[in-house]
């Protein structure tokens, strides 16, 4: 079998490409991402000449159009890239930990925790700007995920099924409490209406600095647990027989996904389908190899996010559609097509 030929990893799963073909695919994804990064700076709801874009980046001056590039398009491009990476890898970790191909970071209560914390920040503490409630969102996501981890742990160890159920239950309770607060507080209602749509508009790059160290730690953890997660896909007992410690692996993976999803959600609000669809597509392309899934998710998620954001800037000119709305519109039909195809990608 040549490196380019498809090979079958185990009976019943889809044929997956060899490592060379995966590498080529990865290079194509990287090229696409670079192209979208350029497009994201070039395309917007205002027509700005490419020469102005070039000058804005490499010959900065106090020009009104250059400000539009440097102050708005460049930050939202960087924010889209970082948030996309975070949500994509978090989604891949989540699907691996829960052994659920349709899990997204929200299923462990990350979105609900962040959302409730933002509601509290706005409604009870009167915080109005994103920078102010960033830490609330981050802390809310972390606390709720740790709570779900505790609830999902039994004497026999952590159970993915119990964790998912705990996440769904805690999420439902927090959504109810958040709604109650929003309905009695107009300021919270206004803030959450906007935040819940999921957007990368109006987020300065400065917003990223506090969460980047957490993202870096989480990505290192993700790489570290990718091998053990492959072993755990066969079952905890078989993984343990190979020297893997499932409980530790699961905790590290959950810490990583919480940092990534919590940080991403804190910055952009809950963005649907990125953390759900991208790892699913990645698994479809590369098969059940977590390291490859992580690598593909790391590139495909910002591709989806940036492409959706660019689309959202131009389809309703002069207004824009929040990226979270576009990813839902794009993601839902694609995901339906994926799950309906004859050979779904299992875990």
């Amino acid at each position, binding site marked *: 079998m040549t490196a380019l030929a498809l090979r079958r990893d185990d009976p019943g799963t889809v044929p997956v490409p060899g490592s060379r073909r995966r590498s080529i695919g990865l290079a194509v994804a990287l090229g696409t991402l670079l192209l979208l990064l350029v497009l994201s700076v070039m395309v917007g709801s205002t027509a700005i000449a490419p020469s102005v874009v070039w000058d804005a980046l490499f010959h900065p001056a106090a020009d009104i159009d250059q400000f539009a590039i440097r*102050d708005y398009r460049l930050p939202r491009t960087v924010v889209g890239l970082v948030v996309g990476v975070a949500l994509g890898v978090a989604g891949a970790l989540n699907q691996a930990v829960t052994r659920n191909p349709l899990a997204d970071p929200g299923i462990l209560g990350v979105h609900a925790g962040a959302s409730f914390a933002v509601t509290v920040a706005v409604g009870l503490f009167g915080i*109005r700007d994103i920078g102010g409630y960033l830490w609330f969102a981050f802390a809310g996501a972390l606390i709720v995920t740790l709570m779900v981890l505790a609830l999902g742990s039994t004497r026999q160890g952590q159970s993915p099924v119990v964790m998912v159920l705990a996440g769904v239950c805690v999420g439902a309770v927090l959504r109810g409490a958040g709604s109650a607060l929003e309905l009695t507080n107009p300021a919270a209602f206004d803030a959450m209406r*906007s935040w819940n749509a999921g957007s990368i508009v109006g987020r300065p790059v400065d917003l990223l600095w506090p969460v980047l160290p957490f993202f870096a730690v989480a990505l290192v953890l993700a790489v570290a647990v990718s091998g053990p997660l492959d072993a755990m896909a066969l079952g905890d007992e078989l993984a343990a027989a190979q020297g893997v410690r499932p409980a530790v692996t699961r905790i590290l993976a959950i810490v990583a996904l919480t940092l990534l999803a919590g940080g991403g959600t804190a910055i952009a609000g809950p963005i649907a389908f990125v953390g759900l669809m991208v790892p699913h597509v990645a698994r479809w392309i590369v098969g059940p190899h977590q390291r490859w899934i992580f690598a593909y998710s790391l590139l495909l998620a910002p591709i989806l996010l940036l492409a959706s954001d660019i689309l959202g800037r131009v389809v309703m000119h002069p207004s824009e559609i929040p990226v979270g709305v576009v990813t839902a519109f794009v993601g839902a039909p694609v995901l339906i097509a994926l799950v309906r195809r004859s050979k779904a990608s299992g875990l």
Partner: protein
Amino acid sequence: MTTTRLLTAALLGAALVLSACGGDGDDAGETTVATRTVTADNGTVEVPADPQRVVTIGNTTLPLIDMGGAPVGVTDVTASELSLIPEQQKATFQAATSLGSSGDQVDMEKLAALKPDLILAQLPDSEFEQIAKQLDSIAPTLFWGLDVEWKTFAGALAEAGNVTDGLSGQQAAFTAKIATIQQTYATLIKDTSFVNVDRWASSDPGTFSIADFGCVEIAQGDIGMTFPEAAAGADPLGWTSLPFEQIAGLSKYDVITYPVDAAGRPTEPFAPVVATNTWKALPAVQSGRALGVFCPGNNSYGPVLRYLDSLDAALATLPAKE
């Protein structure tokens, strides 16, 4: 038997006397109160000519108080709305009984206990439909939808609440102020393209709007200043959120008006716009032709007059800077 009849007659007599005493005030009031008919969005309604216990729901509260009315029951207004009205009006508002946070949250028992002789309501049609029967069963009710023109609304409200004296004075001041502005800035009004921008607490981060509703309607419709407006049949421009990168598009207008508070500072929601480099680079901003204008409200004459004072003061700065 005779004793029983006598006792029965005595009881009936006492009951009649007591019922006459107890009903004296109400019955006498009902029979002697003069009425008149007022037409509102819910039809022509017979109301007391001089109502003494008025309840206001939704957007009727502050306009009625502005014209000199003193409702006995009100629905809440926002803290920011309350902060914009004069102290005396604030005291009148606070003296009234709060009946709920909004038109669809009215405490009907509390409302009935106030024994109002007139209920005035302005709120979305769908919300009024839910409470209309209950309100009608308590007191004559006049309702206006949200799309009623503000001067028509003020006139009808004044007539219904019997505060037409207050209204007349305000109308005269309004007419005089409009004429003064038109006369003083005739050339400027004729030759200048204005744009009014705004941003609200509910606006998405990183967005603003070219606002064509609110106080700017008075500058446009009554004074004759030229502002961008939506095409016929289209949604108001202000409903469209524009990303900050489109601030640069304001360069094509001669003068920009934007919202400020009573002290002349940009309103809290609008402050992020003023802080952008794009805003600071606008020709109008750099040449002092970006005018902060205070708009405390646009549905009764009192706040509109304060808006016109602010606009007048802002326009007065233009010739010296040009």
